[in-house]
Each structure stands twice: as C-alpha cells, then as structure tokens.
C-alpha cells in the first residue's frame, strides 16, 4: 500500500500505492513516467463494404476508445545486488516484471498477456502504454526495420490533406524495433523485441500493441478469425520492452546513440549454450 522504489547507481523508478509505475529519478531529477495496460475491443463489421470490415488479422479496427484493465496492481518486490525487480499482477491474464540490472541504464519490462478472455463474445487488442510529461506536440518516431527512424505526426500525412475516419488505428504505425518521442528537455524511447503496432495518441505518451485475440474474420481471404490457441486455451504471449528515458542533452553518447547500441544488443543477443559438467571438477574444465 506504500510507494515502492527500485533502481541502481544510474536511475531509480517508483511505483505508486496502487502498484503502477509512476516516476523515474535520474541524477536527482524526478520525472513522471507511468506505464499501464489498456485494451481496445475489436470492431465487428458485416464485411460487405470496405468501411465496414471487422478487426482481424489484416486490420486493426477498434470499437471505441481504450478500456482500462484495472485500478489496482498487486506488486511483489525483489531486491538484490545483481538485479532489482517488481512483479506486477494487473489481472488474471496480464502480468509484468519491471526490472533494473545493477549496471544498466535502461528499464526492462517483461510483459505476459493471455489467455485473453472472450467469454463476452468480444475480441480484444491489448496495449502497453507509457505516459510522460514531454510536450511532444503530436510528433513521434518509429523505426523502419530497425534502421532509420521515421518522423510521424498525429492526424497528419505529409502528402495529402487527411480526413481521418479511424482516429485510433489511423495513427498506428509498424514498429519493428523502436518508438520514441521527445521535447526540448526529455526523450522517451521504447524498444520492442518483435514487430508491433504502435502510436502516440496523446502528447508525451507512447503505446505498443502486445497481443490480440479476435473472433471474426476480416474478409481479407483467410476466412478465419485471428484467435490463436494453445492446448485449447487462448495463446499466452510473453515478451520484453526496454525503456530508455532521459534528459535531451547534446552530449556524447547522445540518447539516440545509446538506444542504437542497446537495440543491437537486445535484437542481436548473445547465443547461449549449456553443457552438463557434473562429472567435471572446475580445474579439469578450466
């Protein structure tokens, strides 16, 4: 019920009394950094005409705005010399570990979503959303296959006057490796471990879609709803986001450079191999 803080010599993050991540402190300066999960209900169309297609494998089409998952998160804190982490339980089907390793200057979010409940007959599309106080002015950046960052502007297209019919999915873009926003003082970047849809629907906030379960085909040829199961239950998906947050400083390495090095490391990770050495003494092995 009280505030919780984890961190290392570079940064500390705090969780409010409801268990939500609420702020980050770097070099003694505290900034707002909130994270939660929300979900969109998938639209159900008659699929006869283009504008009336259901949300499905080829389409993200929410029915209305986001729904929140919970007002209260159970947390469990683990602190040690190598890693500090907070285990969060948002609901029966959404949990997450927020961890900070002793020698890293980023935050690791290991989310786990599923089986997504559909007893109400409604498909759901789950999003992890980050909020900061950055005055990003509707501008955000998404990567192109892990290489350049493309500048995106909410409710805008560079080459034509946009009349946006879908206010949410019309602002979603493919995020293969990284999505970021900034203002003159702050920069927030979220690196993902697999291609996801993402956007910034309000200044200072970023979101990435982590899992979806839909119940109607979208009439684009598969004739099958995007409703993946495992062992008869909805699929459980587990993945990671890495958050790099900090002051926008023209110093080397720039925040963007740090993000790129981290991106290289997490997306081209070391290969791990294991050997059973029960019959060896250390000296033999050495």
């Amino acid at each position, binding site marked *: 019920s009280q505030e919780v803080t984890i961190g290392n010599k570079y940064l500390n993050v705090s969780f409010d009394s409801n268990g939500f991540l609420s702020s980050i402190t770097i070099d003694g300066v505290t900034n707002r950094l909130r994270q939660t999960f929300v979900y969109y209900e998938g639209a159900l169309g008659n699929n006869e005409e283009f504008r009336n297609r259901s949300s499905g*494998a080829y389409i993200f089409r929410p029915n209305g705005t986001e729904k929140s998952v919970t007002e209260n998160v159970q947390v469990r804190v683990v602190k040690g010399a190598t*890693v500090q982490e907070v285990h969060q339980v948002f609901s029966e089907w959404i949990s997450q570990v927020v961890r900070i*390793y002793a020698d890293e200057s980023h935050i690791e979010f290991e989310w786990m979503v599923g089986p997504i409940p559909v007893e109400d007959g409604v498909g759901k599309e789950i999003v992890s959303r980050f909020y900061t106080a950055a005055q990003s002015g509707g501008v955000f950046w998404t990567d192109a296959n892990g290489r350049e960052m493309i500048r995106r502007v909410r409710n805008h297209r560079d080459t034509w006057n946009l009349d946006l019919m879908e206010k949410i999915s019309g602002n979603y873009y493919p995020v293969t490796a990284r999505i970021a926003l900034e203002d003159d003082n702050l920069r927030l970047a979220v690196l993902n471990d697999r291609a996801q849809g993402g956007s910034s629907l309000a200044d200072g906030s970023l979101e990435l879609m982590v899992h979806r379960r839909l119940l109607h085909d979208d009439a684009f040829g598969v004739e099958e709803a995007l409703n993946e199961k495992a062992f008869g239950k909805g699929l459980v998906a587990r993945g990671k986001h890495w958050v790099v947050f900090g002051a926008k400083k023209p110093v080397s390495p720039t925040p963007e450079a740090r993000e790129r090095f981290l991106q290289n490391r997490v997306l081209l990770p*070391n290969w791990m*191999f294991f050997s*059973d050495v029960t019959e060896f003494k250390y000296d033999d092995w050495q």
Partner: protein
Amino acid sequence: EPHLNVLREAMGVMQHHDAITGTEKQHVANDYARMLNRAVGACGANTQAVLNQIVDPKFKRSAPRSRSGLPVEHPAPYPQYKFAFESCHLLNVSKCELTESKDSFTVTLYNPLAHAGHEYVRVPVNGERYIVRDYRNVEVSSQVVPIPASVLNIPYRFSNATSELVFLANELPPLGFKSYFVTRAIDSLDDFIHEAPSVAPTPSEQPLDDQVTHWQ
C-alpha cells in the same frame, strides 16, 4: 551443409509476408513453427561442432548425418564431443531442462556482434544458491530471483523451476565466446569453502552501454 539447408529452405518459405506477420491460417502458422523448430534443431549440430572445434581444435568432425545422408532430425549430443553445448529454446518461459536438473553446468555465450558486449544471464534453476566462476576462476556475483507466480501458472510450461539464476556475463569478445562454470551450493560446506566474498562485477564508471559507445 544439409543442416544449414534445412534452415535455408525454412527461411525461404518464411519470406512470405504471411509468415512474417502471422496473418496466415492457423494450421499454416503451426506448420511454419514446426518447420522453423526442426530447422533450428538441425543446426544445433553445426553450432555444437563449431564450438567444440573452437574449444579444442583437435576436434575435426563433420556435422552428423543419418545413413541416408539426410540431416539428422534432432541430433542428440554426441558422447565423443567434449561438451554438448545444448540450446534451451524455452528460456522465454523460464524453462531449461539442463539448468533445472544439473548441480553443475556451464553457460557459454557466443557474441555475434563485432564489438565487445555483456549480458545479464537468466536461467531457470531449482537451487537456492549457486557459485558462478569464469575461466580465470574469478567468482562472479549472482542472485537467485523467484519466477513470478503468473509464469509458474502458464498452462503448458511443464517445468519445476521456481527461480532464475541471474549473473552478469561481462567482456564478451567480439565474434567470440565466454563460458561460466556454475555449481549449486548445496550445503554449508560449500558456503564455507566459498566464504570469500563474491567478486561483484567490476564497478563501471559509466553504464555498460556508454562504455561500449565510448569505446566506439
């Protein structure tokens, strides 16, 4: 070569946008997963052979082949190899048969990047305390962290591990590898033997990322 071809063929099929985005029919998606799993398993023989050759150049053995000359489906570790160098493909759901069941095992990290790297290793275990040593017999500080209950309850995880062993693998050479010898500290005797305070990773002035950037 035949093992690599199995992976080449699978990756050839996976160029299709459906395979990349998962918009194909469910049974096709399941078949893609089957193809990839078989191909990556077959290439386990190649990584085993290469790592054994690097570790002990005397080993000059070709990848295993079945009598018909086709790649062995899931090559079992070969007793004649000094080390099995097995992979655990379910670490993402905190499952690894070998690290969960053995009191001594090695973790070998191969760094595919062209510059030195580091990584916090996390492997599922069943013990409370472990001694992690690198090749210079330097003990690396480690921590055993509980696996979240929500992960333990994943319906099809089939693992007894309730914790993960975490330690920092530092100074991983570019396009090279580094191994760690991990022993479960089973009784107080071990604690006594290893009373020496564990060596915390060299405290770095800058975050490790910046070090690499700085080195760049």
